[in-house]
């Protein structure tokens, strides 16, 4: 799992590349736990190259969501592959998180 951060004005885009499981979730957790991330108004998660997510990966997002909401930082997922979106759907997380099809919609969200 590779995480690439692209800051731009008040938005931070994180590009996820690879498989997010119980072994690699620490990489993402470290990125989301950085205090500076709360200085952005929006954190966009580009999932185009995220080919797999397990409960450990979902748990990383869930564990930071309240902290983001308390700091008025909006977390938006986009470019999600169908098989990855299916995992969010099975747990009902698609109703609790903002997931949009494209970068354009993510920027407008």
């Amino acid at each position, binding site marked *: 799992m590779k995480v690439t951060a692209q800051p731009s004005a008040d938005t931070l885009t994180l590009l996820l590349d690879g498989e997010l499981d*119980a072994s690699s979730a620490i990489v993402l957790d470290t990125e989301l736990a950085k205090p500076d991330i709360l200085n952005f108004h929006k954190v966009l998660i580009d999932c185009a190259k995220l080919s797999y997510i397990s409960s450990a990966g979902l748990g990383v997002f869930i564990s930071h969501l309240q902290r983001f909401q308390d700091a008025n930082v909006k977390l938006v997922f986009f470019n999600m592959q169908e098989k990855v979106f299916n995992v969010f759907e099975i747990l009902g997380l698609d109703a*609790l998180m903002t997931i949009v099809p494209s970068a354009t919609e993510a920027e407008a969200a």
Partner: protein
Amino acid sequence: MKSVLRIACSRRHLQQVRDFVRNYLSSRQLSEVTVNQVVLAVDEVVANFIIHANGEDENQFLDLELAINEHDLNVEIADHGDTIFLPGAHQSPDLRDYIRQGRKGGMGMTLVNRLMDRVEFFTRGNHTVCHLSKHLA
């Protein structure tokens, strides 16, 4: 046709487990979503065995066996550690509570139960075995 894999109890081997399941299913005409669902269910059970039943002790190992009978996939995951690992009754987690509490874990077995048609944990001697099955259309 059966296929077997033995791994040491380290989460570093989860990728190998997923590749093993994907490779086994690759000859079937299955959608990416269906393949991913089976891969995820196996990955979650194996991760639980590695982390919770064996404390990531690399001297311990797990045996996986995949078999397809007609359109039914059967998976056996056998632990060889001495800790009996029998997850409790499946309950639907309150995800809003999880978000409020900042919880990281507790969703894995919920996923497994929703992804597979049958999920069974039982003991064989001093060890724990998990059987998963799913009808593949």
